[in-house]
């Protein structure tokens, strides 16, 4: 099956995207390809899903499972201007909720809905990583800082009247489709767009304060030797691995509470045992898959490679559990327990 919706230019771009990743790892191109089909259609349509599947040799269910996971892939036609208002805690208490409520009423749309003229899509967003500028909103992901209901209404009215309001720190606005090309990994080719945007004052405050008071970090000598004289570097850094054992060395079940063990895994420090540190030869996995493994699996089709709900081959969890059990039993014993079908090796 060949999809015909997409232009030759898009097809050429798709080839360019795939070429960024190792030849046998083309699936890595899926996220940028989904951005790419949005750049032509404004959303991820069934044709867009089919196009990505065709380019990467996947089935449509595998592509659809990924597309539906991520917020930025829109499932319905979207306006030229995506207005996202942060209503997460900080912006919320600083007034972001009023901004969102006012816009929703003014535009007559709710979350993830588009105005009747097809121009503006409104959404409330979770933290947009600009808390020092709160409350913030974005138009096609470029920032408008410190907004209040009045300025926000002014921005959307200007957009609907065909104007292009200036964002606070970003580039001159482009449409959502144009933005999707950049998200697919292509440079912003508009003259001067990269240079657009002045730094916001909050980003600079600490630095400005230091400069006003003549503060810098003393003792900086760019010619400091890399090797310190009294501590020559060991030739094999792997020796520093804290386990030093040749066996899987998470002795589970151990006396630690699950909370403690989890906390250590989540917040490891130098003392935390790393069971698969190099030099320990832990047979947690089989050898790395040869480049053809993925192709073989693809060729074998659904029967040999049942897609799970998350588009990954089924049975991963059972394998992992078996492996854990093996590890738990094999304190001090080492041997070839790895399986080429382990989760890590399968991809």
């Amino acid at each position, binding site marked *: 099956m060949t999809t015909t919706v997409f232009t030759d230019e898009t097809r050429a771009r798709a080839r360019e995207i795939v070429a960024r990743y190792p030849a046998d790892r083309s699936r*890595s191109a899926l*996220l*940028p390809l989904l951005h790419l089909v949005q750049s032509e259609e404004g959303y991820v349509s069934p044709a867009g899903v089919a196009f990505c599947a065709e380019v990467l040799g996947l089935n449509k269910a595998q592509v659809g499972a990924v597309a539906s*996971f*991520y*917020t930025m*892939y829109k499932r319905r036609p979207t306006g030229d201007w995506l207005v996202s208002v942060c209503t*997460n*805690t*900080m912006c919320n*208490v600083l007034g972001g909720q009023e901004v969102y409520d006012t816009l929703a009423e003014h535009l007559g749309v709710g979350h993830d809905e588009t105005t009747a003229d097809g121009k503006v899509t409104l959404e409330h*967003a*979770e*933290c947009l*990583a600009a*808390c*020092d*500028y*709160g409350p913030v909103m974005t138009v096609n*992901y*470029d*920032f408008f800082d410190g907004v209040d209901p009045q300025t926000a209404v002014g921005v959307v009215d200007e957009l609907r009247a065909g104007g292009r309001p200036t964002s606070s720190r970003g580039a001159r606005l482009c449409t959502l489709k144009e*933005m999707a090309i*950049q*998200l*697919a*990994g292509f440079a912003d080719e508009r003259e001067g767009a*990269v*240079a657009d945007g002045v*730094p916001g*004052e*909050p980003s*600079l*405050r*600490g*630095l400005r*304060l*230091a*400069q006003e008071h003549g503060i810098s*970090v003393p*003792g*900086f000598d*760019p010619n*400091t*030797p890399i*090797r310190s004289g009294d*501590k020559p*570097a*060991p030739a*094999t*850094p792997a020796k*520093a691995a804290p386990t030093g054992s040749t066996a899987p060395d998470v002795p589970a079940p151990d006396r630690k509470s699950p909370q403690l063990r*989890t906390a250590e*895994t*989540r*917040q490891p420090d130098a003392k935390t045992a790393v069971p*698969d540190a*190099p030099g320990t030869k832990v047979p*947690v*996995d089989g050898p790395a898959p040869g480049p053809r493994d993925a192709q073989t699996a693809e060729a074998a089709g659904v029967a040999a490679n049942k897609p799970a709900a998350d588009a990954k081959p089924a049975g991963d969890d059972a394998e992992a559990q078996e492996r854990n059990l093996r590890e738990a039993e094999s304190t001090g014993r080492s041997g070839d327990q790895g399986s080429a079908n382990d989760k890590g090796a399968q991809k």
Partner: protein
Amino acid sequence: MTTPRPETLAKLTPVLTKRWLSPDAWRIGTYEKLDGYAALRKALKAHPDDLIQLVKDSGLRGRGGAGFPTGLKWGFIPQGDGKPHYLVVNADEGEPGTCKDLPLMTHDPHSLVEGVIIASYAIRANRAYIYIRGEAVHAARRLRNAVNEAYAKGYLGRNILGSGFDLELVVHSGAGAYICGEETALLDSLEGFRGQPRLRPPFPATHGLYASPTVVNNVGTIASVPYIVLGGAAWWKSMGTEKSSGPMIYSLSGRIANPGQYECSLGVTLRELLELAGGMQPGHNLKFWTPGGSSTPLLTAEHLDVPMDFEGVAGAGSILGTTATQIFSDQDCPVYATYRWLEFYHHESCGKCTPCREGNYWMVRVYRRILSGQGTHDDLDTLLDTCDNILGRSFCGLGDGATSSVTSSLKYFKQDYLDYIEGRTAPKLSDKQLVGAH
């Protein structure tokens, strides 16, 4: 605004932020004039193992929240194993409160690119990826531009500066999923799957991207590397504390006079940060704050003098996290704040693990009931019980993080909950929001 005292000003350590005031520092020409790529030239003359040792000696710890020693992480990469190695930079900044990496990549993207090249050389990786949050479009514009400039100048590509070292660097935009900031979910996402965390072990150090040895580091961690290569480990350790060395960008937001980015010596206290930021806004008194984003347990005015390094904050029962310091006052309600954070975790839970997926769903509903004035005393036990069933029972830290603000706000502000339940505080949500709550 009163000028901070000299001893407080001395806590400022502009290192990673130092070029942000130079217009055009994002252009390669300007960057080169400001020490740019000098560290790369120096590093390429050294043995990769010496660079790993240097980073170990510096005591640099990960800036993405967990604080794992960076040199140790690099040292875990098996050498001479015949497999390709990868460096992946986690630029998926999205933890509520966190806003330090976006300005860095916007104003000084080359410092990250230079750090990537040095780190890749040290761990013998010939391919590197920067996984940048999809919504961070202007930072990505500048970063892609910087990568193109670096290729044109021979800092990337084949035989970099005649050293024989090759490196391909791709800037890969995400698509709006907080979970992809978790390193194994990020790797799945980068491989073209849904971003869901993997079971560990095996760790990415041996089975990361494409089941090969992989280092995943935060933007701030990698951007620190050129400065360590230039100034040396001893200089780096002249900042910070014994176990938490170096400078850290503290992101201050909320009810303060001058919110913003303040790069300080690790171990600075909130009292000192507030002094630098001009104090609280008029009419606001500090009530609660997060030391490192919404996944770190809340602290209160009692904790103004806790040293904000990895050990100090842990000693106070919280986590340093990403030093995203969100400051709330007596005019903000800790119950409502926690509710909004839970809405976030509920939305962002990837759905892989039942405790996180279901637990957050139900806790949101309990909060709605409390905030609409129909909560019961049993609801508080239900919340704590649910937290017990989430914490430590999911693959990754997202669920753990969700419980932080619940348990800590119940610990410090139980009275605020009781005021809603017993009718002393007017409901903050209307009954309409209660649909679906039982």
